[in-house]
Structure formats: C-alpha cells, structure tokens
C-alpha cells in the first residue's frame, strides 16, 4: 500500500456524509448513538421482567389499582409456591436434570459431528448438514403424537431420560451448525503445529481447537440449556403427574380455565429464570473475555 492511495482513500472517506469526523475530546455521534441504543435495549428487555416482578409482589386487593408500583410489597407469593402440597422443588430438580442432561448430550454428540463436517470433505456432507437443518422445520405440536407413541412403547413415560433425549434431538441442529462454522474459521495449521509438537489429533483438538471455539461452544450451550429449560409441549405430553413434570408444565398449572393466578404464576416464573441467570454468570467471563481477541471499537 502506498501513501498516495491512503490519502486519496481518506479524502474520499471525508465526503461520505453519514460518517462525520467529530472534534477531538467530545464523544462521537456514533458513541452516543451506540451507548444510548444499548441503554434503550436493556430497558425494553428488562421492562416486562420488572412488570412480572411487580405483579408477583402486588397484594391481591391492590390488583385493580391503576398505580404501576404497588403500595405494599407482598413476598408471600414467592414462599407459598414452595409450601403446601406444591411439588415446585421437585419440578425444579427435574428441570435442572433435563436441562443439564440435554445440554451435555447435545455437546457430546454435536462436537465430533461438527468438527468432522468442518474439517473433512466427505460424500454426503452437504446432505447431512441440510437434513440436520430440516429437523428444525417441524412443529413440535405436529411431532408429539409420534413421540408419545414411541416413548410409550419404550416404557419411558414420566422418565427424565425421555425429556433429555427429546430436548437434545430438538436442539442438536443449531449446535452442529454453529460449531461447524466456528471450527471452519480456525486455521487447520494451528492443529498441525500442535501435532508436530507431539500432540495427538485428539490432544490438538482439545488444547487448540476447543479453546479457540469457546464463544461458539458457549453459545450452543446457552441455547440448548434455555431451550430445554423452557420446553413445554413435549413435557406436557410425556408426563402424567405433577411431581414428574418440569417447571414449564408446573408453571402452566397456575393458569386455570377461567382465572389466572398471576401472583403465583409470575413469582414462580421469576424463580424459574434465576438458575439460567446464575449459569450465565458462571460462564459469562468466557463470552465477555472472548472479545480480547478482537474488537471493532
């Protein structure tokens, strides 16, 4: 590159109307827009959550008050979802087992499949990737009849394993595709260099490829975990008693045919969302620090 082209390019750049160069010292228009937008998005996405929290804290007798913030906070909704003959604790345990089980199974199955579709050119590679994507095109409501029949034949109704397997199958497509995209972007030379240094192929995969693909793995992990955490239709079909059902089904029980118990529904939903936030807190560093590799500031 020569100095001439650089200057001509920057001159051309100056004439672009929507890229104004701000004076030094003042925050740029871009910065203001981006940070303002960030606050706006955080606000829009947190508002329904706050509304849910406030409704859960609102005493029943204030239900028809037009105020946004209740006059008195009532915490009893949060404790009473656990009390009495409620199986909320059991439902929570089942949901945790299903979500962790499905996430583990998805990663176990998707990592090798994605790695080989990214690294090797074999017959049927395109067909495999396309068929994996086609599995996303079916309505869960259209699939439940067949899944119910299958699980009944296998004697797996009310089994946690049935939910783990179904949730893993439903969410495998995204994991395979996103991991394949990340593995493709990692230069094969890095693995070859590790193998020259004496690492086995698996060792190179574990020590070189996995760490570099971490943002993709974390994305697939969060995606599967949340999808399994919230799966409703299949769980509703495959469980027959309240103490065998996960949270998504238990929460739905607060919706009656004629009335909705909003206080308990929203209190249990807030509680149900907390484990996902905690999981994210544990792996957040991986996502946030992934940015040290590159930045577009």
């Amino acid at each position: 590159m020569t100095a001439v082209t650089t200057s001509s390019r920057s001159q051309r750049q100056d004439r672009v109307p929507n890229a104004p160069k701000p004076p030094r010292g003042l925050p740029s228009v871009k910065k203001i827009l981006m940070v303002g937008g960030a606050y706006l998005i955080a606000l829009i996405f947190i508002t329904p959550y706050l509304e849910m929290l406030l409704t859960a804290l609102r005493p029943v007798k204030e239900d028809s008050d037009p105020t946004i913030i209740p006059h008195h906070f009532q915490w009893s909704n949060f404790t009473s979802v656990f009390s009495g003959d409620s199986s909320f604790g059991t439902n929570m345990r089942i949901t945790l087992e299903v979500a962790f089980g499905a996430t583990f199974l998805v990663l176990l199955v998707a990592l090798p499949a994605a790695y080989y579709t990214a690294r090797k050119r074999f017959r049927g590679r395109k067909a495999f990737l396309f068929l994996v994507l086609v599995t996303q095109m079916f309505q869960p409501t259209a699939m439940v009849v067949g899944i119910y029949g299958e699980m009944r034949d296998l004697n797996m109704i009310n089994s946690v394993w049935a939910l783990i397997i179904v949730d893993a199958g439903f969410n495998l497509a995204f994991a395979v595709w996103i991991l394949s995209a990340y593995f493709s972007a990692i230069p094969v030379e890095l693995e070859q260099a590790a193998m020259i240094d004496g690492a086995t192929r698996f060792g190179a995969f574990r020590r070189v490829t996995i760490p570099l693909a971490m943002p993709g793995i974390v994305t697939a992990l969060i995606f599967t975990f949340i999808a399994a955490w919230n799966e409703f239709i299949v769980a509703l079909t495959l469980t027959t008693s309240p103490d065998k059902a996960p949270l998504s089904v238990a929460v739905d029980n607060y919706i009656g045919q004629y009335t909705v118990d909003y206080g308990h529904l929203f209190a249990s939903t807030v509680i149900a969302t907390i484990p996902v936030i905690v999981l994210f807190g544990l792996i957040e560093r991986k996502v946030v620090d992934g940015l040290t590799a590159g930045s577009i500031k």
Partner: protein
Amino acid sequence: MALPTAEQAAPPAGPAGPAAPGSAGAAPGRRRRRQVQPYILLIPAVVLLAAVVGYPLIRLGVISTQGFGLRTLITGRAASVGTANYTAILHDPQLVPVLVRTVVFAATLVAGTVVIGFGAALMMVAAGRKLRVAMMLALLGAWAMPTVASTLVWQWLFQPTYGVVNWLLTQLRVFGDVRQHDFLAGTTSGFVVVWLLVVWISVPFVALTLYAGLSQIPADYYEAAAIDGAGYLRRLRTVTVPFLRPVLMLVTVLSVIWDFNVFNQIWILTKGGPDGATTTIAIWSFTQAFASQSYGQGAAIAVFSVVLLAVLVGWWVRRLVVTGEEA
C-alpha cells in the same frame, strides 16, 4: 491495496501450511480408516435425530394419508384415504390467504429480529463492560422466561384499563386516550402486538449469537481498515459483515424457519383471530387437527408446510454450506 475482505482474511485452505508428519506419507490402510472416521463420528447425531425426529415424522406422514378423525381415536382404526387430505387442503379457499399471511408475518419478523439483534450485538461491543453485562442480563432474562409467562406478561402490558403500554401511549398525548383500547381486538394492532412479542423473544438469541461471532474477528483487520481511512460504516461493511457472514446467515435461516412456525405466542394471545388475521400455517394446521378433529388434514398441512419451507430455504442453505467450504 484494498481493504481486507473475507477472502483474504480466511486462512489459506488445504495443505498450504507445514504438513503434519503422517498425513503426507500415510499408509493406504490408515488412509482408508480416515475415510471411514467421519461417518463414525456422525453416527451418534444421526441416531439421536432418527429417534427424536425421524420416527415421529414417519408417523406424521402416515397420519397425513389417513382419515384420522375422532372415530379413529375410539375404534383405533384409521382408513387409508390416499392423497385425499392433500387434495382437500390444496383446494381449501383458506390456503392462499394463510400462506400469504405466513410469509408476510415471517418476513417482517425475520427482518425485525435480525436488524435489531445485529444492532444490539454491535452496541454490546461498543458499550463499556458494566453496560454490556447489563444488556446481556436483560436479553437473557427475556430469553430464559417460559413462553407461557412472557406471553401473559405481554398481554398484561397491553391490557385495557391496567395496561402499562396503554398508559404510556396516553401520556404521550399523540394517540389520544387509549387507556381503554384493546389492541388485540384490531386486525392490524393485533398483528403488531404479536410481532412485538415474537421479536422481543427472538432478539436475545440473535444478539448473543452474533456477539459471540463478533468476538472472533481479529483486531488487525480493523486496524488495517482504520489506517486505510475507513469510517465506522465502511469498516462494518468491509470487515464485520464478511467475517460474520456464516453466523449471520445461520441465524437468519434459523429465524426464517422458526418464525414461519411460530405457534405458542399467537395461540395464547389471539388464537389466530381476530377474524383469522393472525392465522398462520402453524395455527391452521393445529386448528384443523384438534379443533376440527381432522387429524389427517392437520398432519397434511404440517407436511406441506415443511416441504414448502425446505424448498424456500433450500437454495439459501446451499449457499451456507458453500460459504463454509470457502473458510
């Protein structure tokens, strides 16, 4: 010299780097084993998908050729009707309006989700650490909420008399007093409320996935572009988008598929109403099967919509796979 593009940035494909010992002079037997290996590593995925999706799919296909109605549930026998269910739905006067509505609905949803999600991902990169974590938590809260609950909270926000949105819009004094307005009763406003809800639920996935993708772009390319005098928008176009293309296209294709099939949110908010204004193909399939108790036709609509979707996204997926080969 031009700004770096994806082609230049992509690592040289093939054995351009130092060849690993063993890979060059491998014995024929070893080479054959390598040929078999991919298939072995794909088997767990294929088995899992066959069990969870393949088998129910065959059942669905069989039901779609049967006169599977309420009588079948009692007697346990279903008469084969051949392609009658398919002929029936193809001649149904509802078919064309439902398809047009589904495509418009999905297209506007995908556009909204991807644009807002991409914007949010870029904002997360530009924001400081604290604001970034706040954004992530807000997005994650929306994403992790059970659909039933988030849909009901949305209904609550737009409710006549108590709705926060009704109150806010009234305070703006632009639309007059809308405190008593029922947004879900109007055909256009009902559509808009459903759209807002689905976008709100879908954006976190797109934003967090694209944010993770952005973290993979080496800073050198931005520095090179900056030296070349490229402004923010130009860097976005010449560095960010080409690098992000595989992930960007993946989330777009998945959004197309998912938004084509949106069911829960529409069903809970409007049940396809008012006047069928929000009856998409997913709702139609469900009401045919369970409300009209014509399971065969419901299954036929489901199969038909998958074939349609596969054709629609097929060429796009080809491009996706090809993009993966370039990298």
